[in-house]
């Protein structure tokens, strides 16, 4: 049972194509596994259809129809057809099965890297995005993350395990969003390690100098 979903305005942004690659990646990872959000997204696509219907018509060129038929007859591939993307490479093995395969197409991962006791991360490169700001986090059972606030917004999709950050408990399938007003300290439950997919558009602000130092050389903080 999923308890935490992306806000409607995020689903609308995804439906209307206005969400950047990094955020879109994490929200999509949620939607792929959430029936409730699939339906909401479908509703926003339908609203998009109504918006299209309500658009002020603009006359097409006089020979537009003839040109369109010529394109059809020529059988030319649509110029903007989505080209086949290579299979994902470099991802930690357990994450390949945790993430929907069609989302990973063309993406590049990296092996787990140690960032602190019981904490590992793996950055994700997304095609067409110079800097995706998306990464995977793996935290050992019972481990407490350093207390931090956020310079910007953070999206998290829980892929396995669960944590509690004082605001709520988050289980596999849940989505969480934090902004600069939230300071939290996620504690992974004892039941197992927790793997999350996260997007971060600005560095975390750690309260302790040790975490700050660690973050600086792993790229979590500037």
């Amino acid at each position, binding site marked *: 049972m999923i308890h935490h979903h992306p806000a409607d305005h995020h689903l609308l942004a995804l439906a209307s194509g206005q969400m950047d690659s990094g955020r879109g990646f994490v929200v999509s990872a949620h939607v792929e596994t959430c029936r409730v959000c699939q339906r909401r997204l479908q509703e926003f696509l339908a609203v998009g*259809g109504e918006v299209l219907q309500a658009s002020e018509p603009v*006359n097409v060129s006089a020979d537009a129809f003839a040109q369109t038929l010529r394109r059809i007859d020529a059988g030319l591939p649509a110029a903007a057809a989505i080209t086949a993307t290579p299979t994902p490479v470099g991802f930690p093995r357990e994450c390949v099965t945790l993430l929907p395969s069609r989302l990973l197409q063309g993406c590049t991962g990296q092996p787990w890297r140690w960032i602190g006791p019981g904490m590992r991360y793996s950055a994700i490169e997304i095609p067409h995005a110079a800097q995706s700001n998306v990464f995977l986090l793996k935290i050992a059972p019972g481990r407490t993350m350093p207390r931090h606030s956020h310079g910007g917004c953070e999206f998290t999709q829980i892929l396995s395990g669960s944590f509690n950050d004082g605001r709520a408990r988050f289980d596999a399938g849940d989505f969480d969003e934090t902004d600069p007003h939230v300071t939290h300290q996620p504690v992974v439950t004892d039941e197992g390690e927790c793997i999350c997919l996260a997007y971060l558009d600005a560095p975390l602000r750690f309260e302790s100098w040790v975490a700050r130092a660690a973050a600086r050389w792993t790229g979590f903080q500037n």
Partner: protein
Amino acid sequence: MALAVDVLNAAPPGADELVALVTAVARHGDRAAFAALFRALAPRVKGFLVRSGADAGVAEDLTQETLVLVWRKASAFDASRAGVSTWVFTIARNLWIDQCRRSLHPAALPQQSAWLADLADCAPANDDDEPLLGEQRRQHLRAVLASLPPEQAEAVQLAYFNDVTHEHIATTLGIPLGTVKSRIRLAIAALRQRLDGIEL
């Protein structure tokens, strides 16, 4: 082949008529049906793209591409899962995203366009065959949209266009951009409230 595209005088076909036209294209490669679809859809698609920020040439090109894809993908369209306008919206939207990507347009872009198109085409997301958005729910949605106060309906529409459009509105109305954005959020919340008020 000359075609009078007189959008102002043409009575737009209803949702059912659009479905019949797409079905005729899918089953028989019916060019007359396709011409009718073109008349009904092309000027709207172009208007939508212009409002999204496409310049006239790009809007014209992508409108034609959209209709080419309507022709090619007609047999994949399933009326029990989505309306024609929803389907066409996702096609046009995906072409626009790819265009932005190619031209490194500052509007940043998801790579999930392909699977969103699938969602609208629409392969069942789960094994159960129940559509995500059945005809009844779609009718409800149209009724809810029609019942929104005009300013809110306008704000919901605005949500489908980018920051450039929002800034333009803010300047025109002489209000801060933040106010435009919060009006949009409130309108989305009102839409959700009305949508879920009556569960079908």
